């Protein structure tokens, strides 16, 4: 603009000194210039008016009208370009106004058509532009030569040309952009996408061609087999491949041409946007395609390889191509036809990627990481469900997160899917625990410090605390090597036991380490390795101690204290030990040793005594048997029950959980035998004596009938019931109950076992309350199908009835709490109504001595709700009342 004003100022001064001749000359020249320029610009390739134009322009310049000449010429160009170039250019795309956006329907014909139209339109507008540039160059030369004459070669030779061309470029792009139809970017995007897809399929085909030599023909495997190249490492292999790639592909050239043409008409950024979005689109598709729902293999490497193989190759070729053009064409743009083949498509092969390419690679990789990460995070729940198998997916996710750092996204998304899918009433506690353990294991890989695990685990723990059977399930998982989870053959129990083992090993290792490293050295190493907590860390948790993700610790954390866990374990152990008919407790000893390491020896003391009882029992049992051998009993027993067939578990009852005692009359010979055994025990172990728990234990029975023999493993009560039928084939329930020594209802419940096995048959007796039971000697008697053949082993029958030999923890609690019942009723009589808190506090205040009130609020609550269920209390609006 400065140039403009100065020259026009010049003109004004000159205007006064103008003669008529000069005016005529000027007007003549001006008219000539106008018509010449119009003719030239419209002449479509005809340069016959160029000489006149140059002369007229020079003449006008002599009169100081250079700026006028420039402006007029440019305006002419603009008009013509607008009229011819731009309108025609946009007309090409008019028919695709509605076609382009519908990306879903892949119409190859339409795609092809669009592709051709784009090329054609761009070619045309480029040639138009080149023609105009030629014209402009003429003018520029004319102006320049005048300038040179005037200043005797002191002027910057290029300034006018550069100025004019930049002006022209501006005109072209502003004209085009001003009339840009809104669907054009879409069409461009579509075009690039189509081209890239073509390219990637070509690349895939290429790689298959190369791998034909005995390689697997699966594309995925191919890509994986070519993994050796890492990011940024463009070794010769790639260069070679790239050479093949770009030589074989005119495609890249075509695309490059399109991009170049777009740049030419000032659509640089739009073109970049379009192919960038196409590349990202393709990359996303590829990631989704590769990653899919398969978590058993790592896909990150193949994605990286693909980035190297397709988009980066493409970009490299493109950038090379464009770079070549600009460098070659800079001196005289527009004089070379864009269609002219470029023999020097020099991918110089030096292997140094250009800065732009590196930047692209980083962008693409980040995008790939982010896409994969989002994909994996969205499916994290499923991934963790089949965790040990899905470890590769977790590993991928870990790498992605290291790159993107979007851990909080993971935490949020995973928590919400947990709430939605796992922490619902429909999920079994076992499943939740199993998932919890898997989560711990999986997240431990991603984040060894356990910061995110803390956040993710909290909702699960919170939820599990509200479940009644949590402790039981945990203990089962801990102890039961075969897994208490029938629908999970992978056996959660196994994994926890392994965990116990693993921790033990790691502890051993650390102790060894401690011995080797001197403390100071270790401290220095620790200090050097210190890393700040991630920002997401909960500051209230404190980071002074090095967090160690300890699965067992986190599991115990659910319950709150290890005492409850140990107590539950004790009950389960007791149950298991009491039902053992051999003394094989190796597995239990192993588990106990592991638990001792974790929970401390003192808390497992009682359990240890229990196991010790079993070991002692075995020894004592052998001793007692040995004494019998010495003094053979002269009298023969009618029943096949000798001391050989009696084994006993002798327990130290003080250290066992309270045991259910139920009176039962054992058959006379067995009773005799037990007395014998006890007598011998007293002889061996004076002054100790035995107290039989007659209802406990197990009996292995073999029943022989007329036509079959059956084996059972049953409780003593069941055994004594069936033994009553040895002498008497038919019993009335009342009499049988009396003989066995249990109430009638208990008998009726237990006898069902034998009925269900087809050993006994039930019929109505004379009295309606009395049932009659008869022994089924032959199967045909009842018409029961003979599915039961001899030698079938039954499970311990007691389990069927949910009968337990040991009082459950809840029962124990209820027993302990009954002491406070009269306190509570007393309080409620005085105060009328009380809230739970107040009852709890009052009990704490007054029940100091024997028995001290040491129950938790939850325990009190469950006891009170028990009282409510028994209709002793009433519960309204958070207050407890005495039931009137």
């Amino acid at each position, binding site marked *: 603009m400065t140039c403009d004003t100065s020259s026009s100022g010049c003109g004004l001064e000159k205007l006064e000194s103008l003669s008529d001749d000069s005016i005529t000359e000027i007007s003549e020249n001006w008219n000539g210039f106008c018509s010449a320029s119009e003719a030239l610009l419209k002449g479509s390739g005809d340069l016959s008016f160029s000489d006149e134009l140059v002369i007229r322009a020079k003449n006008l310049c002599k009169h100081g009208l250079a700026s006028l000449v420039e402006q007029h010429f440019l305006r002419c160009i603009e008009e013509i370009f607008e009229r011819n170039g731009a309108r025609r250019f946009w007309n090409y795309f008019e028919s695709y106004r509605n076609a382009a956006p519908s990306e879903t329907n892949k119409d190859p014909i339409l795609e092809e058509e669009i592709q051709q139209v784009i090329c054609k339109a761009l070619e045309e507008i480029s040639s138009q532009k080149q023609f105009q540039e030629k014209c402009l160059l003429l003018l520029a030369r004319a102006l320049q030569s005048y300038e040179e004459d005037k200043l005797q070669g002191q002027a910057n030779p290029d300034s006018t040309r550069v100025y004019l061309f930049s002006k022209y470029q501006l005109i072209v792009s502003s004209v085009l952009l001003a009339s840009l139809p809104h669907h054009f970017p879409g069409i461009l995007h579509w075009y690039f996408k189509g081209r890239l897809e073509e390219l990637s399929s070509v690349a895939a085909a290429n790689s298959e061609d190369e791998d034909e030599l005995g390689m697997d023909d699966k594309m995925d495997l191919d890509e994986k087999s070519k993994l050796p190249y890492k990011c940024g490492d463009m070794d010769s292999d790639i260069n070679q491949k790239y050479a093949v790639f770009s030589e074989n592909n005119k495609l890249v050239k075509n695309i490059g041409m399109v991009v170049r043409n777009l740049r030419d008409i000032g659509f640089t950024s739009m073109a970049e946007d379009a192919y960038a979005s196409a590349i990202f689109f393709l990359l996303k598709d590829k990631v989704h395609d590769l990653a899919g729902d398969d978590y058993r293999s790592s896909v990150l490497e193949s994605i990286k390889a693909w980035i190297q193989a397709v988009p980066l190759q493409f970009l490299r070729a493109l950038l090379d191509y464009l770079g070549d053009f600009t460098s070659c064409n800079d001196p005289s743009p527009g004089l070379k036809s864009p269609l002219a083949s470029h023999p020097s498509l020099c991918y110089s092969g030096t292997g140094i990627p250009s800065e732009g390419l590196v930047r692209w690679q980083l962008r693409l990789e980040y995008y790939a990481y982010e896409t994969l990460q989002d994909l994996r995070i969205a499916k994290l729940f499923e991934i963790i469900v089949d965790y040990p198998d899905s470890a590769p997916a977790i590993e991928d996710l870990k790498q992605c997160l290291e790159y993107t750092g979007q851990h909080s996204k993971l935490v949020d998304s995973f928590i919400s899917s947990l709430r939605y899918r796992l922490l619902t009433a429909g999920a079994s506690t076992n499943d939740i625990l199993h998932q919890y353990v898997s989560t711990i294991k999986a997240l431990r890989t991603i984040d060894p410090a356990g910061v995110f695990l803390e956040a993710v685990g909290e909702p699960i723990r919170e939820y599990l605390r509200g479940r009644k059977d949590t402790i039981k399930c945990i203990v089962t998982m801990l102890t039961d090597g075969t897994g208490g989870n029938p629908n999970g053959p992978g056996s959660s129990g196994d994994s926890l036991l392994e965990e116990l083992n693993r921790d033990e090993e790691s502890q051993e290792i650390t102790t060894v380490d401690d011995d080797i490293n001197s403390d100071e050295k270790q401290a220095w190493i620790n200090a050097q390795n210190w890393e700040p907590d991630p920002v997401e860390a909960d500051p209230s948790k404190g980071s002074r101690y090095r967090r160690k993700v300890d699965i067992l610790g986190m599991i115990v954390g659910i319950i709150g204290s290890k005492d409850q866990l140990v107590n539950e374990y004790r009950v389960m152990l007791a149950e298991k030990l009491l039902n053992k008919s051999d003394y094989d407790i190796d597995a239990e000893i192993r588990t106990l040793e592991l638990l001792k390491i974790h929970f401390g020896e003192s808390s497992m003391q009682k359990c240890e005594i229990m196991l010790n009882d079993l070991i002692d029992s075995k020894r004592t049992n052998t001793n007692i048997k040995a004494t019998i051998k010495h003094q053979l009993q002269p009298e023969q027993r009618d029943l096949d029950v000798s001391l050989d067939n009696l*084994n006993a578990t002798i327990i130290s009852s003080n250290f066992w959980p309270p045991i259910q005692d139920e009176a039962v009359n054992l058959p006379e010979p067995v009773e005799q035998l037990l007395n014998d055994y006890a007598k011998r025990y007293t002889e061996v172990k004076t002054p100790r004596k035995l107290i039989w728990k007659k209802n406990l234990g197990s009996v292995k029975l073999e029943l*022989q009938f007329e036509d079959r023999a059956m084996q059972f493993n049953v409780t003593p009560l069941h055994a004594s019931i069936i033994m009553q039928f040895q002498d008497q084939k038919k019993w009335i329930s009342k009499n049988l109950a009396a003989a066995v020594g249990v109430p009638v209802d208990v008998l009726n419940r237990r006898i069902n076992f034998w009925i269900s096995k087809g050993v006994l048959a039930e019929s109505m007796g004379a009295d309606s309350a009395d049932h009659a039971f008869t022994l089924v000697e032959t199967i045909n008697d009842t018409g029961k199908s003979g599915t039961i053949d001899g030698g079938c082993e039954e499970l311990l029958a007691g389990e069927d009835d949910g009968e337990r030999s040991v009082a459950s923890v809840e029962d124990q609690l209820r027993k302990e709490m009954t002491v406070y019942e009269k306190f509570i009723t007393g309080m409620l009589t005085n105060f009328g109504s009380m809230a739970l808190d107040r009852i709890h506090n009052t009990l704490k205040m007054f029940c100091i001595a024997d028995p001290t009130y040491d129950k938790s609020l939850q325990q009190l609550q469950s006891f009170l709700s028990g009282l409510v269920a028994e209709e002793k209390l009433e519960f309204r609006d958070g207050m407890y009342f005495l039931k009137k």
Partner: protein
Amino acid sequence: MHCRWHAVSSWTWDAQDETCGICRMAFDGCCPDCKLPGDDCPLIWGACNHAFHLHCILKWVNSQSAQAHCPMCRREWQFKE
């Protein structure tokens, strides 16, 4: 009919009292110094027929400078033959 019976019983010391008069722990348990009850922590009877954990009464007897007495009845402590 053939059967193998596995019975369960608990053992107890055949003493008149429930707890040891010295450590106040149950006889069927063990004295404070022991971990395992039964054979490892036996009872012992004095001539006066009072029973204690062996470890408890030994500690008591050893701590007395002169002739030890039964902590329950103050008679001279003699181990029951």
